[in-house]
């Protein structure tokens, strides 16, 4: 059994096994026919719906619409959170000024802003992008601020005694040191961005993976709902793995 043991020790083996088990269980239950198809469509049915939507181009269009919203909203959030988080983490005055405000807004559930966003920005792309921004910006900023507070004092002070000034020290010492934590922060908050885009699309959208799911509900197409959920999960997983790969490459020194 040494080969089997080696296989088990592979980091991916057990994970794949877990997923396969659920798939087999799902297939068995639907094959026996003990559950109404309306509630639990078979894997084949879901696969077929997926193929249909893929060949018609619908799936790709929806996925692109959702991904685009997430990326625009999250890019704004991440891009703004980085400088603000760094300044908050390194300057006590700014920190004391902004931290209570941000901590307060952070606890307001982002989906509760949807009605307001629709009143302000209508039903176009802007309210959805803004929702993702609101839902991730404060978390991103506060987590980056925390990372900055853990930069060893010696690294900054060495730069000072080498003739460094504030701005170069922030960009070349502080920003470099926190890069791994920043990427990890983005990776974690990206998951909320995905949750939010689906919520926004459930409320109001013409296309997108969330929209497809809410349409499917109207026609009791549980197979389409299942397909949508699985695609959302897969895209999220791909983004997560992408961030991990980026971190391994860009922050090799921290591993």
């Amino acid at each position, binding site marked *: 059994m040494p080969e089997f043991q080696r296989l088990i020790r592979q980091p991916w083996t057990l994970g794949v096994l877990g997923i396969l088990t659920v798939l087999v269980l799902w297939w068995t239950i639907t094959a026996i026919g003990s559950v109404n198809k309306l509630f639990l469509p078979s894997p084949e049915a879901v696969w077929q719906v997926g193929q249909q939507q893929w060949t018609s181009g619908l799936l790709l269009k929806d996925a692109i619409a959702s991904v685009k919203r997430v990326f625009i909203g999250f890019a704004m959030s991440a891009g703004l959170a980085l400088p603000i988080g760094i300044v908050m983490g390194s300057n006590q005055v700014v920190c004391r000024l902004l931290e209570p405000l941000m901590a307060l807004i952070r606890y307001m559930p982002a989906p509760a802003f949807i009605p307001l966003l629709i009143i302000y920005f209508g039903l176009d792309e802007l309210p959805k992008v803004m929702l993702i921004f609101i839902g991730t910006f404060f978390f991103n900023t506060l987590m980056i601020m925390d990372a900055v507070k853990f930069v*060893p004092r*010696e*690294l900054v*002070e*060495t*730069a*000072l*005694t*080498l*003739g*460094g*000034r504030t701005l*170069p020290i922030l960009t*070349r*010492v502080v920003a*470099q*040191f926190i*890069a791994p934590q920043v990427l990890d922060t983005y990776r974690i908050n990206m998951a909320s961005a995905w949750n939010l885009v689906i919520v926004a699309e459930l409320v109001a959208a013409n296309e997108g993976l969330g929209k497809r799911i809410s349409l499917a509900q109207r026609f009791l197409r549980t197979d389409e709902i299942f397909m949508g959920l699985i695609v959302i999960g897969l895209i999220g997983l791909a983004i997560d793995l992408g961030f991990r790969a980026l971190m391994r490459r860009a*922050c090799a*020194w*921290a591993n």
Partner: protein
Amino acid sequence: MHLQIANVGKSFGYGSSSKEVLRNVSFHVRSGEFVALVGSSGSGKSTVMRLIAGLDRPSSGTISIDGHAVSGPGSDRGMVFQKYSLYPWLTAAQNVAFGMEMQGRDRREIRERSSYFLEVVGLADAARRLPRELSGGMQQRVAIARALAAEPKVLLLDEPFGALDIQIRESMQEFLHDLWKRTGLTALLITHDLEEALLLAGQVHIMAPYPGRIVRSVTVELDRSSLAHLRVSRPFLEMREELAQCLRGLDPALTA
């Protein structure tokens, strides 16, 4: 170059919670000298170093370099810390170049000086390695090279070998002594290790805690042609023993 520390005192906090950590500290360092401050923890020796580096301000007294009062950190006072001395994301050569880049020197000069100073500390081969791929002693040598490359008037060494094993410490002491002889650098060393101070420094100031102050200053005039020999020579050991007794007598935990 003349670094002058005159009647410097330092207290942290305000009012009744204020704590005096330094009282009336005075000494000076001239070009080419190697001076050491020795004391136990709490003697305020690191505070003295931070004040000289400009990282903190004295509560009283003055610190001046060539007649100009120190008002903040600057590249004329290069510092080497005990931990986190290198930027972990930069290679050895990039670490050495870092200070010169901060000073805005031109790129060719930076490249030449980086390899020159890595050579000076004997690490030309390690130029492309990351700090985590270097031993503790090598890391400190790179940190010293980086400080020197920025052309400081005085090199401030804050327990630079404090985190190293005893054997590596000894070889680093030899290295630093050799470097001092070769380059004629000016250095102020902080250490709790009396032997280290006596081996390297021509002038040793002994500090006592609560509040931190200089209680004794000695000029060390010993034959330093071989440190290994000096370590076990009679005059060295006698001097060390005498000063060690002085240090023990100062520690309230040992006398009480």
